[in-house]
């Protein structure tokens, strides 16, 4: 049936386009395509160099905090993940989080604790007041590898201020969703669930602290912490808690999941620091995913200018 409609057999000679004309048209299409890409360049600079799907958010607000380094391939960003809620292997989250989050129900976020304006929100309502902004950040994992990722989302401080934290709000604690049905990794006791992370209030209010809802111009995928994740680029990756459902202002320093798992190995601050090594990983250098040679790791992952003042009187070896 299919072959009956094949027009090739029915074509007569005068139907065939002259080859010169054809070539001209081809050139025109190429030029037009080039022009289209060129005009699109300022807003989506990475689209042409990468294997990323075309972006749904094309006009993201730029940020002075964005790095100008080569971006890590989309493929690597979305298949090489640590997200134990979906398995302990690097490729497990991409395999096990395909249906996450369940889009049939709205994602709820609770903001509570030491604040005057607590509340529970649908993520859509929570995001409404904010303009989506792009932040190209370096991500340094405690395991000694790093990436450069174009996130988008909004500033954590902007959200926290709306909740009006009171004078007792010394820290901010974050929780990941606890739902072993949706997150099969939570059926194992490899970590204590739900995943908990925390920041000191001034760290949380620092303009670098970011809540991401997407990357590469599209909504976050499950493996990257959809639909809402923290990004603190001067700290090791595990501080950037994924799939957040709770934000709580507290007076006492929270105990994070990794602190519970290995208090001698993972501290509360977990700032990127080449001079403080982990028992398993020297932190002096890192392998940027996609690169062959290793590069030197920078103090605070190269964000000294923005965050060094937060730690002026602290012994960073003690407060690792």
């Amino acid at each position, binding site marked *: 049936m299919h072959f009956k409609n094949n027009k090739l057999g029915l074509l007569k000679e005068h139907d065939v386009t002259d080859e010169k004309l054809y070539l001209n048209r081809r050139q025109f299409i190429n030029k037009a395509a080039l022009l289209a890409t060129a005009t699109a360049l300022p807003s989506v600079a990475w689209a042409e160099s990468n294997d990323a799907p075309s972006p749904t958010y094309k006009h993201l607000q730029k940020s002075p905090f964005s790095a100008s380094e080569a971006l890590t*391939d989309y*493929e*690597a960003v979305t*298949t*090489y993940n640590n997200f*134990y809620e979906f398995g*302990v292997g*690097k*490729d497990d989250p991409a395999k096990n989080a395909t249906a996450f989050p369940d889009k049939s129900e709205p994602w709820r976020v609770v903001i509570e604790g030491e604040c005057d304006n607590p509340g529970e929100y649908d993520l859509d309502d929570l995001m409404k007041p904010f303009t989506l902004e792009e932040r190209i950040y370096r991500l340094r994992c405690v*395991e000694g*590898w790093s990436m450069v990722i174009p996130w988008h989302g909004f500033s954590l401080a902007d959200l926290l201020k709306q909740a009006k934290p009171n004078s007792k709000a010394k820290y901010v604690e974050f929780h990941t969703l606890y739902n072993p049905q949706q997150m099969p990794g939570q059926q*194992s006791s*490899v*970590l204590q669930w739900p995943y908990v992370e925390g920041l000191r209030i001034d760290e949380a209010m620092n303009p670098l602290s970011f809540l991401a809802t997407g990357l590469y111009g599209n909504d976050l995928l499950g493996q990257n912490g959809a639909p809402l994740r923290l990004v603190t680029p001067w700290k090791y990756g595990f501080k950037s808690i994924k799939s957040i459902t709770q934000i709580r202002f507290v007076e006492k320093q929270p105990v994070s999941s990794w602190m519970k*798992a*290995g208090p001698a190995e993972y501290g509360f601050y977990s700032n990127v620091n080449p001079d403080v*090594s982990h*028992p*398993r*990983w*020297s932190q002096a250098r890192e*392998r940027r*995913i*996609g690169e*062959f*040679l*290793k590069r030197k790791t920078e103090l605070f992952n190269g964000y000294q200018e923005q965050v060094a003042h937060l730690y002026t009187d602290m012994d960073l070896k003690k407060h690792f």
Partner: protein
Amino acid sequence: MSSRLFKISVFIVSLMPAVALVYGLLNDQLGANPIETLTRDTGEWALRFLLITLAVSPLRLLFSWHFLAAIRRMLGLYSFFYASVHMLLYVWLDQFFNLSDIINDIIERPFITVGVINFLALIPLALTSSDAMVKRLGTERWNRLHSLVYYIGIGGVIHFFMLVKKDITEPVIYIAILAVLLGIRLYRYSRRTLIAT
């Protein structure tokens, strides 16, 4: 199957993990961090071949599978082969042949210390694996030297146990296998000494 054909088959099968890794590397199938995959997989194969080598004697003892004697040396040398590639990847692609970095790393990170000692201990065993060396050393001395392999086995599983971040399932499986293999030997040894006395 003739013994020669058996040996050749085992040789080819044992080489397959290396072939698969090279194929994966050339076809970009080793994930986002291929160097890490190569290092981890060669290390795991070194440990697997070590345990397979250590399984030969118990299998002969329990099931009289004496044909395995013919391939024990080859299996041991395969363990050394995968361990050498593993070590080369570390020295080259992790440390870029920087001697002072390597020394610092050995001192700083306990699992590296264990791994390096383990590798160094494998070298004399590989060097004395030929029939000529057995003859030169004499069976008794050769046996004493090669009993190092038990400690290397223990070192190997400890090295693996120390390097995993949180999920210890895999190293625990290796520890259990090693415990069984060494347990059989201990049981046999204690029975023998009991009868002797």
